[in-house]
């Protein structure tokens, strides 16, 4: 007989936390661009999950967290510019014998991309970054945001078109 797991069990709760904290936090950050607020929203979402642990089944806990976090975000009006970090080490690049001109171009491209992403509408940016950074499939994003896959694809398409437009002039083959 298989025991039905409950979110109210601390071990289960911890497991959900470890599995979701990063992507939930990123989701919040993509939306509001504020580290402290994102942390607050994430924290509050998990607390609400705990308070409702008897009503939320394990499989639905992910969607619950994202919905709560999204609502918390919508209720807080202030938004900041999203500033993302880049993980590529320039030192590492140096070792690969890239010429300085190329490095400069790389850096410029990165800056342009960052600013273009920051200028995307919240919805499009969130979907785009969840796919690019968190490597989520559209189906998964749709599930988490409680929207249809078509909507995800639409937002993705708009985002890509916007980025293409902003970066196309700069980037010549």
């Amino acid at each position: 007989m298989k025991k039905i797991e409950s979110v109210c069990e601390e071990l289960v709760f911890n497991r959900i936390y470890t599995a979701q904290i990063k992507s939930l936090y990123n989701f919040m950050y993509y939306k509001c661009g504020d580290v402290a607020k994102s942390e607050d929203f994430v924290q509050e979402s998990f607390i609400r999950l705990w308070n409702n642990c008897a009503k939320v089944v394990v499989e639905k806990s992910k969607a619950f967290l994202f919905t709560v976090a999204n609502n918390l975000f919508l209720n807080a009006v202030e938004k900041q510019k999203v500033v993302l970090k880049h993980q590529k080490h320039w030192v590492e690049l140096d070792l690969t014998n890239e010429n300085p001109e190329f490095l400069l171009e790389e850096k410029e491209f990165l800056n342009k991309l960052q600013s273009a992403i920051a200028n995307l509408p919240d919805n499009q940016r969130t979907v785009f970054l969840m796919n690019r950074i968190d490597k989520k499939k559209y189906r998964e994003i749709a599930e988490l945001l409680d929207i249809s896959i078509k909507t995800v694809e639409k937002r993705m398409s708009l985002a890509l078109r916007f980025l293409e437009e902003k970066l196309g002039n700069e980037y010549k083959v």
Partner: protein
Amino acid sequence: MKKNYTNKHFVNWLNNDLSTEELIEFKKSPQFPLYQKIAQTSSELYAPGLEEDKILSNIKNIIATKTGQTSNVRPIFPKILYGVAASVAILIGIFFFANRSTGYSTSYGEQMVVILPDLSEVTLNANSDLSFKKRNWDTNRNIEFEGEAYFKVKEGSTFIVNSILGTVEVLGTQFNINTKADIFEVMCFEGKVKLKNAVSERILTEGQAFRQLTDDTTEDFVITQQKLSWTTGETAFSNAPLRQVIRAMEDQYGMSFEASQIDSNQKITGSFTHSDLQVALQTVFISLKIKATLIDEKNVLLEKK
């Protein structure tokens, strides 16, 4: 149209949804290098750091304080006991709250008018304390009191003023009580009051006053002032022991008097103002042939001339 088509490929490509043919076609498109660059660089981005452990411990703390227990611990007491304990605590709280005293006190040189729940009026002179319980006030008009105050009591049930040196019991009246300097002094301005203490029990009527000194000697005197003096900016006394006057001055001016070199039991009649210390010292002490010297801002030395 062409553009939309490649855009759709781009969208699908990022989701790994392109068929082999579509992929070949997509890679041939002139925008592909840009697309590849966008896809590559954006996947190398990340959001600023997050302290996962700190947030988890925050969450655990908040949960623990909200529920009063951690989740995987079986409660030692059944939950209903918490309810019972809370109810008892609340009942005790209500009892103490309802039973608590309301207090007023004045400092040096201060006077205060206190309106009691039955609209009786008490004027507190300097350095006096008054407290009473609001609960059952109608049936139990009991006041704890030290210092000097003028009472204007509304008619009604018995009204009792308790002090260490004795109690005063009244029915609708106006009177002054002074328990300072170990003296128990009551002046009745209107109606009747009943005094009770370890030594004696007596009734004062309008215009009568009573004073009991520390050595248990008592004296009756007649009120000569029309209105109680200290409520009008000066303190008057008739045939009062000097130390009672000194104490009144100390309370009005916040000064300390050194009176060991003089006879502080001698009787004096007169008054002093509350507004000017120099004038007050002169009016009280010159006639007694006592020299009052201001040592500093807080101390006065009294010596025989």
